[in-house]
């Protein structure tokens, strides 16, 4: 699937994540994550975002994620929604 336009999903509220995505000029997946629990869960959050993108067969995308302690299924839902809005 292809990202056509910038899109967003989620909120900046506690226990949620705000996902912004846009087409990537170069090839590949870029994930810029900021999280209040970066030290503890940064790697895992990125992994969940990446897996969600791969399961949707997204190859080129620029993701900016602002996390405020979202659980994995919230992250997956927000990423999926943002991607679907971008197509």
């Amino acid at each position, binding site marked *: 699937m292809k990202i056509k336009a*910038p899109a967003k999903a989620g909120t*900046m509220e506690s226990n949620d994540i*705000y996902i*912004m995505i846009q087409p990537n000029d170069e090839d590949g997946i870029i994930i810029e994550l900021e999280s209040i629990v970066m030290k503890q869960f940064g790697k895992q959050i990125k992994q969940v975002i990446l897996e969600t993108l791969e399961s949707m067969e997204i190859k080129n995308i620029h993701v900016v994620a*602002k996390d405020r302690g979202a659980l994995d299924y919230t992250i997956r839902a927000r990423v999926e929604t943002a991607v679907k809005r971008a197509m």
Partner: protein
Amino acid sequence: MQDIRIEKIDLNTNQRLEVEGFLSTFNLFFDKDIEYTVVAKVKDEILGTCSYAGKVLKCFAVKEGLQGEGIASKLVTHIINQLFDRGIYESFVFTEPKNLPIFKGLNYHEVHTVEEVSLLEGGMANVKKYTERMLMNSELSAEKKAALVMNCNPFTLGHRYLIEKAAEENEEVVVFIVEENRSLFPFEMRLELVRKGTADLENVHVLAGGSYIISSTTFPSYFLRLEGERLEAYTKLDAGIFGKYIAPVFNIEKRYIGTEPYCRVTSQYNEALLQILPKQGIEIVEVDRLHVQDKAISASEIRRLIKIGDWHSIQSLVHSATYGFLRSDEAKPIIERIKRSDSPH
């Protein structure tokens, strides 16, 4: 705290007065350039508010005692969504340094802090990546450079003199043209006239200044013409950002500035540069302005002459490329605007 409502304020009704009243309890004024405002309410009581003007979040306040209840994050989410829908994917906040933790908790990150004010950025904004991209797209080398920052509204022989001097004294020179489109001459035009007017100087590169060099993001007072404390804070902020991000990425070791006999804002800006950049290892070269018939050339003088239609004087003060443009059909709407305008820019 379940029944918090986020409501948009119609700025043309007396809802606005309500918000102004709320802000006044925080000693905040409702800024003139605000485009959009929301409030958080429970029943009829305002508990918090946030606005934006351009990319900048403004007049943000949450009632004492309720901070930390998630009201701020609701307001910010709403504002960011609004901006996003308008095609603005980045946002900025100016705040007192003591409020830094609040915004960091909302995942804003700190661009730079001076004594009086901090600038933070959010959304897709990223000053480091932005600056690196600027360099990449410019095709400039990694060699040491001298830099100038100019508005060139429009390009005069005074600008040319300053650039020429830098070009003689340095291997490579980069000229950043202020990109913000709030001047009488549109940005594209200003950029093109400087490029044409310096085309013969091989070691001079003219670039767009982007979002972090004298923009409404780094230096709102340049456009608002504010004086006093706020001006001082913003000049220091802009100078600091140049020293912290722009100079290291572009490998800038000197910055050239012209002496400023007329404009208070610019002269205070020069002072801030002199005070801050040498501490960051950047030498400031202050060059006496070019004088013609005992008067320093300035772009504001050119605009005055345009106003009174003194083309003879103008011809002796601007580069031939600028003069050619001013006399062309393309310039007519701009000249009409200058004649009607009282804007300092």
